[in-house]
């Protein structure tokens, strides 16, 4: 279970998060939707301390943390319980596909090499890259790289996996393969928070959808609630824009 409350974050004069609450139960898949600048990515990054929130509290399981005053040790603790899949994958360029996954296990979790290899291979096969173990990231397509990123996150067995617009930087043809891997992960009831613009996908795999705009949570609920029965004006406007795009693509 992860819960953040009252998260505030300002970048110079720009208030990006204005008091956001979010709760993710174990095994829940939550999608965060919203226009650019709504603070969704910043929220995610505050959770794993890639950004330092100005205010806010966080609970992970039975441990409590202050987002503002967390010590280095506490931050490390949280970072070891969470994993992130980035928009630009951020794979380790000087490590092979296999090493990208094993390094977190051997260096951070202090697993021995043989076990780490076994775990890594299992997850890499799961994402469909069992045959590219000794390739380097530069030799892979964007979709393949992102799948390695997902395997890297999965292998660490974190309390929650944070996805920061995992398909936004991919060529359209490659988006599908990554989404189907994420869907697989969701079906195993691994706790996930996904920031995405893939509306249909979010609707399909999420247990809960959160709509953010202007630094606050406007509305949240089940996919049916949000997509079929939006309560707030802003939510309606946002969904309409996407419906128009959807029509245009057809």
């Amino acid at each position, binding site marked *: 279970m992860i819960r953040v409350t009252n998260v505030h974050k300002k970048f110079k004069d720009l208030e990006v998060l204005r008091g956001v609450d979010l709760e993710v139960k174990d095994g829940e898949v939550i999608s965060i939707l919203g226009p650019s600048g709504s603070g969704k990515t910043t929220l995610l990054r505050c959770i794993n301390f890639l950004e330092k929130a100005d205010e806010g509290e966080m609970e992970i399981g039975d441990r409590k943390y202050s987002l503002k005053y967390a010590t280095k040790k506490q931050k490390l603790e949280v970072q*070891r319980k969470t994993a*992130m899949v*980035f928009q630009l994958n951020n794979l*380790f360029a*000087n*490590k092979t596909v296999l090493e990208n996954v094993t390094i*977190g296990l051997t*260096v951070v979790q202090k697993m021995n090499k043989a076990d780490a290899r076994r775990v890594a291979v299992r997850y890499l096969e799961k994402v469909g890259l069992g045959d590219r173990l000794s390739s*380097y990231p530069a*030799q892979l397509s964007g979709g393949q790289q992102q799948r390695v990123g997902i395997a890297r996150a999965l292998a660490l067995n974190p309390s929650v996996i944070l996805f920061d617009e995992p398909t936004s930087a991919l060529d359209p043809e490659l988006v599908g393969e990554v989404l189907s891997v994420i869907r697989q992960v969701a079906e195993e009831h691994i706790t996930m928070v996904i920031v995405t613009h893939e509306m249909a996908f979010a609707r399909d795999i999420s247990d809960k959808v959160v709509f953010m705009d202007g630094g606050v949570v406007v509305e949240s609920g089940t996919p049916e609630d949000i997509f079929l029965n939006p309560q707030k004006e802003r939510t309606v406007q946002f969904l309409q824009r996407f419906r128009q795009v959807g029509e245009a693509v057809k």
Partner: protein
Amino acid sequence: MRLDTQFMLDSIPIILKALPVTAFISVFSMLLGGLLGLLIALIRYYKIPVLDRLFRVYVSLIRGFPLMVQLYLAYFGLPFYINMYCQSVGIDNLAKNIPPLAFAVFAFSVNTSAYVSEVFRSALDSLDKGQREACSSIGMTSFQTMAHILLPQAMVAAIPNLVNLFLGNIKASTLAYMISVHEMMGVAVVLANRAYNYLEIYIVTAVIYWLLCVLLERVFARMEFRFSRYKVRV
């Protein structure tokens, strides 16, 4: 213009006998200076308070005035302070026993460290921040991040510049002859003065240094290739 080619050929083995000294000065000052430079670069990369500012001044100072002057300051200045220290502690003056070579290596190391620190600092800054964030996101400490991911990639970016500095060190080692170290240039000058065959000697010396550098360039080119294999797309 007649060159005494026999004299030129005869002088080659004599000059080459001092090659180990040139090599010693260049290599050791590069290693020691390199290590110190890396340390300084890391301190500045992580913006460690007080030390960051201190080393910024250090780098500016050391790069700011001629190596020859730094060499003389080391050779004439250090013994004075060592002597002072020895007198205050009541032991024999140790400075007497320190060979000029040590002062040369010291001065060149300090000089190199300033340049190397900038090479590594810029190499580290050129790396994309995303990988560093990925390391944090999986719970790596700063040390682990630097050791496994950042430094190896920074090395690849740094190698061409480090090679540059090393080749520069080889040439700079010739200054050591001014504090009576018998490296190649020193030997060559002695030969030239003895026989008044200046042109022949300097041509030979130039060729020796050039061949040495060419050889090293090829070695480092191979090293650079091997280190950057992970970047190859195909």
